[in-house]
Structures are given as structure tokens and as C-alpha cells.
């Protein structure tokens, strides 16, 4: 079980899932994404956060 679906929770879930574990990803809000989903671009490469 991963609690919190920001970038950290999403990454942990994907890696666990790729390793062959069944993952429950529990998120408090209606959608996963956390803060990163709110960012415009990210440093230092100025890639689009989305």
C-alpha cells in the first residue's frame, strides 16, 4: 500500500508494480498528482511539469 499519490507515491507505485507487486495507491484528494501536477515547468531543465 502506498499512501499519497504525489510524484513520490506514483513513482513508488510504478516501480513496485513493474517488480511484480500488487499495489494499492491511496490518495486523499479525488485525483493523484500532488504538487507536481500544479507546477508549470520544472527546474533546472524547464521541462513542462505535465
Amino acid at each position, binding site marked *: *500500500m*502506498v*499512501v*499519497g*499519490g*504525489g*510524484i*513520490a*507515491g*506514483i*513513482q*513508488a*507505485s*510504478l*516501480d*513496485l*508494480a*513493474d*517488480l*511484480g*507487486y*500488487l*499495489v*494499492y*495507491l*491511496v*490518495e*486523499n*484528494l*479525488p*485525483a*493523484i*498528482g*500532488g*504538487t*507536481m*501536477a*500544479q*507546477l*508549470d*515547468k*520544472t*527546474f*533546472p*531543465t*524547464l*521541462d513542462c*511539469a*505535465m
Partner: protein
Amino acid sequence: MSPKLVESGRHPNIKIISNAEVKSIDGEAGHFRATVLKRPKYVDEDLCNACGSCVEYCPVDMPDYYNENLANLKSLYIPYPQAVPASFVIDPNTCLFVIKNECRQCEQACKELNAINLNQPEELIELEVGSVILTPGFDEFDAKRKKNYGYGEYGNVVTSIEFERILSASGPFKGEITRPTDGAHPKSIAFFQCVGSRDKATNSYCSSVCCTYAIKEAIIAKEHEPELDITIFYMDIRTMGKGFESFYLRAKNDYGIRFVKTRIPEIERSLETENLVLNYVTEDGSHVTEEVDMVVLSVGMEPSKTSNALSKIMGIQLNPSGFCSTHEFSPTSTSREGIFVAGAFQAPKDIPESVMQATGSVSLVSGLLSDSRGTLVETKELEPEKDISEEKPKIGVFVCHCGINIAGVADVTRLKEYSEKLDDVVYVEESLYACSKDSQEKIKQTIIDNGLNRVVLAACTPRTLEPLFQDTIREAGLNRSLFEMANIRDHCTWVHAQEPEKATEKSEDLIRMGVAKARLLSPMKEELIQVNSKALVVGGGLSGMTSALSLAEQGFECWLVEKENELGGNLKTLHYTLNKNNPQKLLEEIKEKLLNHPLVTVYTSAQVDAISGYIGNFETDITAGGQNMHISHGVIIVATGAKEYQPEEYLHGKHDAVMTQKKLGERIAAGTLEPGALNDVVMIQCVGSRTEERPYCSRICCGVAMKNALKIKEVNPKANVYVLYKDIRTYGFTEEYYTQARKEGVIFIRYDDDNLPVVSENIGEENSELQVKVFDPLLGEHILIKPTLLALSAAIIPGENEVISRLMKVPLNSEGFFQEAHVKLRPVDFSTDGIYVCGLAHSPKTIEESISQAHAAAARAAIPLSRGYVRAEPIVSSVDEEKCFGCGICEYLCPYGSIKVVETASGERAQTITASCKGCGICSAKCPRQAISMGRFSDEQILTQIVAFAKG
């Protein structure tokens, strides 16, 4: 991030339970029982297809929290366009039905799907889980608590996260930089750093990310409006991450962003103009008054509001600042066994660090639960691929708006009409965000319903989204190769944003070319390549040992190759840490475990001589203790570390009292230097770092200086310790030690590049006296110190990485450290599959960070090992043996070592190594016989595109 969101949403092994919270957990590591409460969304996630027809029926407006309340939403809303799960939700606090049993308009609007269920109950879900990872993140500091800044009252004082939304094209002002009070474009903006961080009244720690994000926001703002005047008011600029220092320098030198070192006590507002008046004192004591149009508060990170309750439910301890309590040497373990932590909940950190730590925590889970790996998962059963060999092309074109990225410039309706007229196109559709989960479902259904047999997507870049769409068409029964993308965003609407007509025309060209190629697409087979389940770790320092042990604990055999005759690397020379933990004990423990682990073979005095092969099947020659050996393995972890720079400046090596911080630590520990005997000590920071030759920050030396300064003060409180610095970069909780050092009387004097300290020696009869002259900006004059000891905070410089880089064909960055595949999203992978990096070889970092990253590399490496095979994309090169005459140009040029000349029955011929070929096409372009053809990019297909272009 969109691809990761979508992948999480569709991964067969991930069940997302959103709008939910954990209520209780009992049991123990390996066997927990958790109860999760899922609050009603009043919309059935499985039925809702996010069409949005219901929204206009909802009469209630409420603040849009995703846009930091700068815009409004209906009570019935989708959190953000790319949201996963991609379904609408009803806000229980404002919905008229939920609060007073009225309205029900939306139910009417969704009669067909019947997805709205205003009587949806809450659900209690019982889960049996072996382990838990806590990633509840952070909340921004509530700026209202800094009363002097008038946030909430002065309309043009915004927080940094609000400013992110203001900058965003999908934000409340569609990416126009706008003052909230009057909608005007501001001419001047001031950023205030350390708001709610490094502040006795609120949070004493440093939030680590706000300096770099403020620089980022300032640069983006400048790109939107080059005339803007931007000033960043700061205490220290902390750009200590990989590549961040040059980002800072760019902001200063290329974008003309002004940096002023001061902390502004308060903001006044001009009632007339709503401008903001700033009064401050500069470093040299002058008083300045300045008026700006807007202020951005760089708010710090606080533990998520839910973390207190969560910690009680989980039975884990928090640290005094409210973040999850962890030990320096096991940064992802909480106080309860089987429960791990990652991301900003562990300590303030940025995205690359969060991603690294998250992957790191996975290897601990995987070590704990290695017996049950693969037992609970379902494999996605796909329908067999449809046979299209007898069909004539029936092409579907999907044109994406990408929010306003495309539609804000190009005329999308015209593109749609244009596409409809192209030969063999039987279906065209527009979509707001083709990458969102609901659009994917729609596209899938459209393919099935219309019997499409090739798909062209006119959208953004294939780099991130092609795999996703290929999965989508595969789910609709089409082979993954029957897909083509036209990048009308990057190549048209972004680069020709000022010329909408031309951008539209060029988009038409790209679509026409895409369709022309699509006609020629044919199904291609993906190869499965077996993976040897052993690993090679190169480098036996802390990172290498940690990752080798982690792989072994996950059940994989591994070889560890260390150049020296003993394990330990830099760790051998460390005797105490800032947090007063003992690195020698750590070294002994891990060595002991490693040397006794049946799955690990350690070779010391060993080196790698040659490596060939590819993910899953590497062949390596090593020399160990004078003997040559050959090993076969499936993955490689590079953990070759780095070393301390040996300064040539400041009389280092010429005067006995001048030494590096590392030497100082060693000598104090060995008792060969007695702090009691020191009167005046000078430490100079950034020696060899942040210079023209080596522009990066070495990240750890500020902390190391605190460590040694405090050690000296502890033994000898009377010693005068001076630290000469450019910025003090004690990020995160290390800030505490900076505060403590100041409290204990350590004197900090700032210098800059124009005023470097000058060290000289005054040679006397018996001994020679050291002299340090430095300009003190507070006093406005030079001061002279005659120290008994001069400690230099020397840079961390890369080791002999070129050799490994050449052997493995993995890249280095301009600073000589290894370059990962993606700074943010793939921080431990190389772009060559099957090779991973961690520790100092990647960039300067602390023990704690090296451990996290080493675990992360082990988790990533374990993915192919545990799966047992890799899938090769059919974009690889293939050689026509009839045409090839074995000249070997391709082998010489291939950057991935993926094509080789071998002896065949008809003589020497080139052969592709399918598993590692990236499909770059260099070989194909250079082959003098045109014998090499690229999957999905054959000469015929490319020529057809060129002809189609010319016909426009």
C-alpha cells in the same frame, strides 16, 4: 508527468483508491491489515467518461483549489485536465443536493451514462498488505502567518505556488502574467525568499527547493515578458542540486534577474495603485525604499496537514519539525518495521530527490517481500491482434488541442476539415488533451467502432507519448506499429506561436506527411529477449555496497568489483557526521553483511577491462588480484564515486597549517590535531567549486564545515572560528547546525568572486605565520586574521569516469559526472538500457542521499531481473545481407554498441543487437550500400513523406 499519471492509471498491478484515507492498520511487517475509507465522489468512476456535459447544469461556483483559488469551478468538476482517475467528482461542501437536498440538475444531464449517483455511500475497504510506503508529501507554508507581508490583504502579494498557476497556460490567466487586483501586466516583480523557512517564528529548517523554484519562476516570467524587472531578495542562494548552479548563473547573467541579499521585514501597500513598497537595508548598511507592482512569496514546505493523524494511525514517529523521523543511515525506514517513507514527507526535497527516494524505498519493500513477488499480479490478457493484411488502409486522424498549446495558435477546426479530405482517411476527431485517460478510452472505442487500421495522432512529441498511444491502439486490437505521430505542437504552434496562419499551414503539411506514411505502415513483431538474472556493481564505496546488498536481499546474485584492495571508498575516511552518527560503524556493518551474503561475490584490487553485450546479456572481462575472469550478467550499476579536489590555491600543500576539511576531520579523529590548541581557525568555502573552471556546487561542503566548526567549538569553545563563504548551503534540517554554529560564536564572513580571500605567509625565524585577508561587507573594510589552522572546503570532483564511460558507452556531463537518462523522471537510469548509476559518480551528495540513490539503482536494476525478459521495440535496424559487404562503418558509428560485423556463411556481414538498438538510425544513414533499414522508418516511408510534403 502525464505519462506517469496515465501509466499509473492503466497499470494492471496498480489499484488507485482516491478520495480516500487510511483509517487503521494493524498486524506486522509482511502481514498488515489496513482499513481505508473512500469518501463518496457522487460520480461513479467507472461509468463517468469525463465528457463534461454535466458541468454547465451545475449552478454552484466554488474556488478552484487546483488553481490556488485564483479561478472558479463548479461544484461538479474534474480536478485538472489530465487528472487520474479521469472522472468527475462532486464537492460535498457546496453541492446543493448534498447540503440541502435540492437541485439534482446534473443527474438529468448524465441520463445516458447514469454516472452521477447523489446517494453514493462512503465505502470501507479492507486491504491485506505486506508493507506500506508513506508519501503524503507536504503543504505550502500558510503565508498569512507572516502578518507583515499582508498576504491575503494586499491583492498583489501572491505565493510562489499561486505564481506557478499564473504562469501556466492551463492556469487562471491562460499563462498571461497578470496582477490579481487589476488584471494589468506587472512591470516589476519582487521575490521574497525563505518565507516560512529559516525563521525562528515559523520553521527553522530550510525548505531546500524555493531558491531554485524562484529562479525558475523568474526565468519563465522573463521569457513571457523580457522587459519585466525582477529582483530576488534572499538570505543565501541555495542552488546545490545537479545542474542548478549554472541555472542560477544563467538567471543572473543571461536574463538580467537582480539578486539582493537581505531579508525584508515588511511590505507596505499603496492604496492608490495597489503597488507594494519595500523598505530594506542592504548588506553594506544602506537603507533603500523601492516600489514594485507585485510580490511573490517563496513559501516553504511544511509536512502535509494530514501527517499528524497519519503518523498516529501508522504508529510511526515524527521529528520535531513534524516530518517523518528517519535515521541518517536508513533514510527511507520509519520507526515501524515494514512501513517506509519517501518524498517531501521525509524532509523538504525537490522532484529528482523525491523520485530517487521513492524508488529507493521500493527496494526495501522488495527485499522484505521478495518471496511474494509476482504472486498476486494479473497479466493483462490482450485480444489477439487483428489481421489487416487484406484490408486497404482505413486511417483515423486525431487532432489534439493540447489545452491551448496547439489550439491557442493553430486553427484546429481547419486541421480537422483538412484531414478529412486526405486519401484513405475515414475518421477525424479533435480532443482537448488526447493524452488524458478518458481520451485514450475514447480513441480505443473509436478505432473499434470504425474499423480503423492505422492511426495518425497530430499532437505533441512522440518522445513521451508514443508508447502510451501505441498501447492504446494495441488494446483496440491493432499492432503497435500501425501508429504515426505528427508533432504539430513542438514543430508548429510552439516555434511559430506568433504566426498562427503559418503554424496552421505547417500543421497541415505534417498531418499530410503523417497520413502518407501511415498508408505504408505494416504490423511488426516485438521480440522478447531473455535476461540473465545476475548483476554487476562497479565500485565498492558506500553506494556500490548498498546497492549490491540490496540486490542480494531481493534475491539476485551479484558481483561487486572494487579497484582498491579494500571496500569502503570515501566512507573509510569519515569518522563522524553532522548528526553525530558513526560512519565507521556503518561501514563495518554493511561490509560484514555483504561479505557474508551467499549471493554476493566481492572482488577487490579489481577492474573492469571490457564490456560487451546489452541489457539482459552483458559479457564482461575483469582482472581481480592479477587474474583475468569473465562474467555474464543482465544489468550493471555504476557506483564509481568521486574524490576530493586537492587545492592548489591558498597555500595548500605548501604550508602545514593548511588542509582540506576531509583531512581536518581525519586528523581530529586520529588525535593528531588537538582542537584545544587552536586559537584562530579560518575555513574557506567553495574552494574549487562554483568557479569558472568548475561551475557546480559541491553540495556537501557547507555541512562539512559546520560539522568541523562545531567539533572544534565543542572541544575548545574559546577558539575563534571564521567561515569565509559565498552562500551557506545548509539545506533541509542541516540548517539547524548553521544556526547552532552561529549561536556558538562561529563568525561568518561573506566574500564574492571579485573579492576572494588572500592567504599569505609571514616567514619568521621559527615558524611561519599564516595570514588571511578578506573583505568584510558588513564592516565595509578588509580584515586580517592570523589563523593557526586554515581548513579548505574543497570541491568534490569526478573520479576517472572517462574509462567507464568509454567501456559502457554511457555519457558524462560537462562536469565529468555521469549523465542520467532524465534529470527529473529517470534520475538513476542511463539512456542505455540495463545500466544504472548512483552515489557520487552521479553528483556530489551526502551519505544519506547516496544510500537512497543506491537503493533506487538496485530497485530499477531489479525490474528486468525479476521480469526475466525485455521487450525490444520493433524500431530497430535490420541488415540486408545481400547488400551488406561488411565494411563496419555502422559498428564504428553506433553510439550504443548495437550493431556488429560478424562472420556469416556469405562472408562478413553486419548484425543488429536487437535488445539494445535504440533505433536512432545513424547506421542506416551512413551505410554506403543502403543495406540497413529502420523499423517504422524505412527509406520508402521517409521518401513518401518527402513527396507528400512537396505536394502541399
